[in-house]
């Protein structure tokens, strides 16, 4: 795949998604970065913003196996990963593995924070290793494998916040905001009429793997690596050089996965924009979705209404370009 094909493919995907998704260009860009990076995304937004539609549309455009799991408190790990069932074959009974909904290219974990931690942890191995182990038997998930989980930020009662280890496995945390007036009118126009979007398949799983391979070859200067490292280190209150704001409001900063995510996403963003190298500006642009869920704020920050985005913004502002 050439850089031009890379850019062209992404543009075509955008075009196809725009048939059903009005606005939300930044969200789509970040989702595409996730797809190319072979990362998982945590999408947070109030109900009715088209999260599920967006992810389902992506699977159609990219011809990916799609499965949706509605997370509820009574959902069990086996309901996700699959389980051994007793089957009778030619008079012999034997256990055979019945694959769960996780066996797909693109898994939509809807309202992931409503499941118990036990069930949530069932995703850990799948997200990190791309495998599922049941009864000491490991099964490989189809590649590329993506988990796009959604969260509802307003209904916190009866929810189980994702543990830090699980959050760290998500490449990006994408926030979906309300559409503006113009976009809202367009949404109303489309959804209340006989309008039906017919998607054209742009790419497939192999294309995504090729794109991922190309993106990994994007050269990055030492200074850009250093910049990413500085940002991640600055987010840690335990660091000697940490700033007062970080020490005051942050309990735990970003893990090394945060720096990896920064560089990976910066490479893809650069390539998506027709450039052949990643720059600091790319790092800055992807810093919020890659780091916001990796910063664990303390109680004082919650009381004062300080968000991770504000902390990251301060860090970037302080470091400059």
């Amino acid at each position, binding site marked *: 795949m*050439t850089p031009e094909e890379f850019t062209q493919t992404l543009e075509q995907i955008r075009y196809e998604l725009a048939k059903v998704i009005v606005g939300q260009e930044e969200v789509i860009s970040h989702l595409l970065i996730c797809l190319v990076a072979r990362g998982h995304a945590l999408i947070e937004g109030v109900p009715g913003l088209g999260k599920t539609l967006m992810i389902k549309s992506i699977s159609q455009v990219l011809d990916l196996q799609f499965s949706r799991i509605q997370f509820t408190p009574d959902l069990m790990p086996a309901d996700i990963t699959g389980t051994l069932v007793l089957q009778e074959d030619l008079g012999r009974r034997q256990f055979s593995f019945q694959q769960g909904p996780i066996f797909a290219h693109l898994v939509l974990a809807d309202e992931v924070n409503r499941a118990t931690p036990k069930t949530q942890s069932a995703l850990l191995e799948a997200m990190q290793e791309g495998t599922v182990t049941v009864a000491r038997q490991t099964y490989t998930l189809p590649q590329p494998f993506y988990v796009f989980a959604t969260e509802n930020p307003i209904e916190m009662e009866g929810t189980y916040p994702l543990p830090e280890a699980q959050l760290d496995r998500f490449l990006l945390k994408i926030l979906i905001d309300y559409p503006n007036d113009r976009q809202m009118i367009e949404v109303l126009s489309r959804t209340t009429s006989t309008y039906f979007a017919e998607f054209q398949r742009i790419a497939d799983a192999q294309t995504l793997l090729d794109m991922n391979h190309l993106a990994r*070859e*994007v050269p*990055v*200067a030492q200074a*850009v690596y250093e910049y990413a490292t500085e940002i991640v280190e600055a987010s840690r209150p335990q660091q000697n050089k940490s700033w007062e704001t970080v020490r005051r409001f942050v309990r735990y900063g970003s893990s090394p996965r945060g720096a990896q995510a920064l560089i990976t996403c910066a490479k893809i963003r650069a390539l998506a924009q027709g*450039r052949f*190298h990643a720059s600091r500006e790319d790092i800055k642009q992807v810093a919020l979705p890659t780091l916001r869920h990796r910063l664990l704020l303390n109680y004082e920050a919650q009381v004062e209404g300080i968000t991770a985005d504000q902390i990251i913004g301060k860090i970037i502002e302080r470091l400059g370009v």
Partner: protein
Amino acid sequence: MNEEAIFFFCQNVARQARKQAVLLNSGTGLMISALSLVLLFWINKIFQLALPWPIYLLSIVPVAALMAWWPQRIPKPTYAIATADRHLGLNERLVTANEVLSHGQPFNILEQRLVTDTAQAIRELSPQRALPAPSIRLPAILLSATLVLFLVLPYLPSIPPARNAMLPQIESLLRQFEQLESPQTQTIRWKLLQAKRLIEQSRQMEAGQALEEAQVLTRQGLTADEQAQRMLGQTTSLEFLAGGLDGNQDLLQQLSSLTPAEQTRLATMLQNEMTKLPDGAIKTGLERLEKALRQKPGQVSSETKSLSEVIPLERALVRDLGQAVADWRSGENMTANAEAAAAAPAGTEVQPGSGLGTQGGVNRGQGEQQEGRGEYIQTPANGQETPASGFIYVPRDFRMSETSQPLVLPRIGEGQMQLVSEGESISEGSFTDYRDVLPAYERKASDQMVRQAFPPQLEDLVARYFQSLEQTP
């Protein structure tokens, strides 16, 4: 081709950064050195430290230190390239391409495209302008401003008033030495001329130093005879005359009672001094007095009276003439008094009687009111009492011969001069053995020297003088 373009561009940028660092360092060093040199110079001047010239070599230290340090300040090529990249708005393109090239081939497709893209981007750019100007603007401005301030300080507009105040005094002192011809006075005049020139150039500190040197030379270097001539060259006698005529009937009587020879000497002196006066009533009066002294001794009294009537009308002129003398006098009192103390017993007709003299009035020259008690010495010529305040020493009096002894006179001032005589006065022609008065005068001379600071040579001179008198059979 593209690789070479990037390579040479980066190399030029690194060279440019090196050159910039060297220029910046040497410029900073030179600026600091110049500033420290000027600072040392001014510190030396202001605090009168008389620093030896090797101390100025300290100003080389900043240059040497910065030159020794400058290799540390030269940015690494990678840093210079990163700076150029940022300055040119290439968004790390140049840096990345440079690093890709440094890793060497083979290049992947993205690296090849990056190199091509970067080569195109820098094609129109100049390595000389790739680096931003060093951010030394504020420190450089501050350093330059300080340097300029020190350099133009003497020429600031606030200086001329001080110059205007000093120049007349120096010119007055120069006039005092005009008639004196000796190697010592030539040195003093040269110093005064130097001070005048420095003041005209607004170099007050140096001028002050030259004046001080001239003053020291005047105090220590002039012989007694030169001191005397210097006094005669001033308007002291005229001042004395004016002050004395101003309501002092005794002096009128003195003038009237002068011998023909004394009158001739006074006339000669008046003739000399009249040449320095502007036209006016005093000059006319003095001319008439001089003529009377020469030709019609009988009219001296009347001319003196008419002159005494004129002088108060032009008192300012008289005071101005004496002002320079008064200024000089304040510095010369020590020497003069010591000489007076030493010379007083030399007159063979020194009187044992003593008196008290009080002087009230405002001294314009000093700008202060004075009132004091002083002793007076009777002159041997006619036994007339002449007030001796102890403040002013006039080495020669017009009534005295060339070898006569000095006369101590009161300082001129506004107001009435009152003489209060105490003790027995010695009539004209009476003699006292000098051995009777020698201890008293020796004690007075030593007291005088204890009260005020005198040059050691002068103290020795006084001591040797009294010893010689004691040894005289």
